[in-house]
């Protein structure tokens, strides 16, 4: 008998297509989880990580079948159990926490009842005992005022609170093992950091084992003891978390880690060429076609998952020795590159005092002359220079998308002025001349949604060409399509493809090509990389930077990911509840003094480094509407001064006359500077504990010097 809680042996899962073709999902997966251990299972979309997670509970997606191997859970062969035996394990000994908590709660039952139901079913408690246990669980997941919380319905809880309730439900029977499938994906950074802290606490308190499935290496680094990396249905590396992030031995692991934008390194990370194959279709190593270490043996012989070094490090690579012979930290620094560009001292778009509201008073409220609620977006004054990238940063509900939609003419501004080449942009798109429409283009977050599934690439690119260049004939348009595809580094043959026949990254390239077909002056990018895998994200960022350089295009770039913003932006505007908090150059924003909200955001970021610990300043209580008066961040601010914050809109304070950096806060600048002393570059605190190359520190502290030399400490 092994001491493993879960022992996956040579598990192979596949399904047959309608054309009776066998498609593998998992290929001979071997994985052990010890009691009390947290395993991070990481990989990009489609690598089979969710299938593996579900297989551990004995679930198979309909149509899928086990083609070989077994899953043993404390000695039981999961796939040989009857449905009844499985039920006695599921929920009691092994529990699942799914990605979307809102979907897994019944909307018509109170939270308390749902959790009590789970307790009665799985923990054999009833009546008051179950009731007491429920309250105990709610306080264990740090929900404030558990008695009141139990009386609420799921929709009355925020996303983070819903996720906590689901965690409470999973803990009902004190299971030995929790499987978490991307439980924080889709939550705001601050909420995510709070939930991860909770999960760590729970592991410490209850000693339950966890398998944490995620695509986010920052999250994995934060929660895991051990990390297993998947690629094309195989586990290709399995080792201690520190090993994985310091000296990964598989070329794919390195490529993946190198493609993440980092706060500690400036510029755009390296991107990996190609895309993963369908599991089991490569004759040799599945990564060989994309691998720079690839040798002859790689394309002919499938590598085994073998133990290397001290035996705790498993890797599926023929050439791991040559991979490990280069130092990863050094390699990492070399792959980051910046793309030089020239910004003109000429403003492209100027917003002053812009106010946008979704509120449309109905007849009744007009008669009763009800007070209008505060506008969704208010008092936005910004200027964007030609050829520069301005990033709008903030959590969901911060008004980033609202502002961009107004710039695109999809929503009229209620007040204030937006000027673009002496033209007033505060009107809707139907009132703008075609030349203005042509000059402002929009790229959306999800290329699956922004490309018409019924048009092939040629038709998609034809739309702007026909609209803006009516004189072009068919042949000229065809030529232009091919040229555009080449500019986004796609083969001209892609013209005949439909969106369904392309990968996510390819689709986003087509969406970018469509925006650039208009030859625009300004491109509005709404979370353009958020829906993409990290390895693809880097390539898209690279492409955007290149395109910008070619035509001196202005970007307004929305993102919730502060590391991505650091990689691509020149200037940053931090928004909270539709109001500006801080505006400045990227160097200034990422170094002290900070606006309390910026500091909260930066503190909550997770970085792919297991030693790094996020610093949680403010609570993760979300706000649905901006406050009626005073500072927008008043209710969550960790440094609230008092009455003044509630009543008066804080003044803009310029940090340094020479630098473009302003903070909107009642706390005087000197005080903010003093407060940030010893806390500068929050994101480096964690790193400095670890063995880190001094060059990284020097590089980043140079940023500090730029804005405020006196805050720097050795």
């Amino acid at each position, binding site marked *: 008998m092994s001491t493993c809680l879960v022992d996956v042996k040579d598990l192979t899962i596949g399904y047959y297509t309608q054309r009776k073709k066998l498609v593998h999902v998992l290929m001979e997966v071997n994985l052990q989880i010890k009691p009390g251990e947290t395993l991070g299972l990481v990989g990009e979309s489609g690598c089979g990580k969710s299938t593996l997670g579900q297989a551990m509970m004995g679930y198979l997606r309909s149509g899928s079948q086990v083609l070989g191997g077994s899953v043993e859970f404390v000695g039981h062969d999961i796939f040989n159990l009857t449905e009844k035996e499985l039920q006695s394990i599921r929920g009691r000994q092994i529990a699942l926490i799914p990605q979307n908590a809102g979907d897994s709660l019944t909307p018509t039952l109170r939270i308390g009842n749902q959790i009590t139901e789970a307790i009665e079913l799985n923990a054999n408690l009833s009546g008051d005992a179950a009731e007491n246990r429920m309250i105990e669980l709610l306080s264990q997941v740090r929900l404030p005022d558990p008695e009141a919380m139990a009386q609420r319905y799921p929709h009355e809880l925020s996303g983070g609170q819903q996720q906590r309730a689901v965690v409470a439900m999973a803990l009902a029977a004190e299971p030995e093992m929790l499987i978490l499938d991307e439980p924080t994906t889709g939550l705001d950074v601050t909420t995510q950091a709070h939930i991860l802290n909770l999960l760590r606490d729970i592991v410490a308190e209850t000693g339950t084992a966890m398998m944490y499935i995620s695509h986010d290496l920052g999250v994995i680094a934060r929660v895991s003891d051990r990390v297993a990396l998947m690629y094309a249905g195989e586990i290709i590396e399995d080792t201690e978390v520190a090993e994985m992030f310091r000296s990964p031995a598989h070329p794919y692991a390195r490529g993946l880690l190198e493609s993440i934008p980092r706060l500690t390194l400036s510029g755009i990370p390296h991107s990996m*060429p190609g895309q993963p194959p369908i599991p089991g279709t490569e004759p040799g190593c599945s990564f060989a076609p994309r691998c720079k270490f690839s040798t002859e043996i790689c394309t002919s012989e499938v590598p085994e998952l073998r133990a290397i070094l001290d035996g705790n490090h498993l890797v599926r690579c023929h050439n791991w020795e040559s991979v490990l012979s280069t130092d990863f930290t050094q390699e990492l620094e070399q792959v980051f590159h910046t793309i030089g560009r020239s910004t003109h001292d000429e403003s492209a778009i100027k917003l002053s005092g812009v106010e946008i509201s979704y509120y449309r008073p109905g007849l009744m409220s007009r008669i009763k002359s009800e007070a209008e609620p505060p506008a969704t977006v208010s008092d936005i004054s910004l200027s964007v220079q030609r050829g520069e990238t301005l990033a709008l940063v903030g959590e969901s509900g911060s008004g980033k998308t609202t502002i961009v939609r107004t710039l695109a003419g999809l929503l009229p501004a209620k007040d204030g002025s937006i000027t673009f080449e002496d033209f007033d942009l505060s009107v809707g798109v139907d009132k703008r001349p075609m030349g203005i429409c042509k000059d402002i*283009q*929009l790229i959306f977050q999800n290329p699956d949604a922004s490309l018409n599934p019924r*048009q092939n690439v040629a*038709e998609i690119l034809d739309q702007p060409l026909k609209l803006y260049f009516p004189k072009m004939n068919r042949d000229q348009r065809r030529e232009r399509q091919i040229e555009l595809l080449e500019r986004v580094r*796609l*083969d001209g043959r892609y013209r005949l493809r*439909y969106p369904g026949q392309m990968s996510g990254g390819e689709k986003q390239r087509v969406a970018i090509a469509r925006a650039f077909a208009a030859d625009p002056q300004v491109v509005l990018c709404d979370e353009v990389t958020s829906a993409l895998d990290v390895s693809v994200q880097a390539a898209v960022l690279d492409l955007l930077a290149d395109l910008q350089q070619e035509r001196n295009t202005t970007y307004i770039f929305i993102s919730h990911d502060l590391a991505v913003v650091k990689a691509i932006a020149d200037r940053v505007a931090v928004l909270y509840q539709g109001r500006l908090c801080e505006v400045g150059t990227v160097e200034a924003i990422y170094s002290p003094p900070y606006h309390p909200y910026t500091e909260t955001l930066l503190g909550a970021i997770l970085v792919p480094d297991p030693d790094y610990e996020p610093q949680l300043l403010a609570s993760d209580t979300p706000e649905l509407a901006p406050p009626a008066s005073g500072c927008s961040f008043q209710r969550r601010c960790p440094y609230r001064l008092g009455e003044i914050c509630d009543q008066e809109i804080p003044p803009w304070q310029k940090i340094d006359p020479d630098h473009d950096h302003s903070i909107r806060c009642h706390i005087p600048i000197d005080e903010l500077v003093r407060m940030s002393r010893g806390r500068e570059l929050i994101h480096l605190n964690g790193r400095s504990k670890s063995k880190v190359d001094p060059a990284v520190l020097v590089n980043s502290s140079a940023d500090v010097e730029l804005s405020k030399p006196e805050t720097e400490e050795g």
Partner: protein
Amino acid sequence: MTTASPSAEITTTVKRRSPLAETWENLRRSWAGMLGLTLIIVHIIIAVTSPYWVPQDPYEMNAEIRNEMPSAEHIFGTDKLGRDVFSRSMLGGRVTLVVTMIAIVIAVIWGGLLGIVLGLVDGKADELIMRVVDALLSIPWLLLLLIIISVMGTEMWVQTLTFGFTYGILTIRVARAATLDFVTSDFVLSARARGEKKRTIVTRELLPNVRDVLLVDGSMNWSWMLLGFTSLSFLGFGVAPPTPDWGFMIAKNREIMAIQPWSVFGPVIMLSTLIIGINLFSDAFAKALGLDRSQGAPV
């Protein structure tokens, strides 16, 4: 600084097929769908060619062979006027098919376009027209048809337009609902942000996506329309005698059903095989287009 960016490699595994070819591939693998399609095609062939090959003259009355049971000469026997039921059954779908096929196209076009436009404009006009549609839909369909037909007359073109109009009302709702799924999608938003005209958005962005729903809805409505037309004929508002027509045949021959059941079975078999065919085809068509979620997306 190098800007070493990979050029995306073209993957050769993707077969370049248009969605239409894809749909046909999916449809071909469904035996029910192919059976349905075959039934429809056979019916159309019969309707077109039957006057040239039916064994007996469908109009010829013969008092000596009234109400006769099936024989080698008269496959479905004869009706009470001594006419050959088989020949009349073969010819009985001619008017029905012509009227309903033209009418369904009219219904899908006007109802579909109006529905899409209403889904896109989303304002006072939408509100007003949809309430009118609701009011019209609250009238039982047979009653509505009877009112229009009795006022306008029973000429073929009147019937065609009436059916096209009435069933178009049903299509408006379907088209509008399908459009609402797409108007807020990013690709329509993107077209609006480009400054595209409403007409372009309807024809280039919305129509290709709503088209599938309209086609399936149209083919399902076709079978309802057939029943509607047959019902009208049954009530005597359809085809003028002596032209053979299924509904009218059923109405007239039901009196002799006890003596010569085949005089009713003949037209019933013809009508039901056509309706079953249409329904089988519609279901398979919806699945082939990926509209039927329970089947999952085609692999």
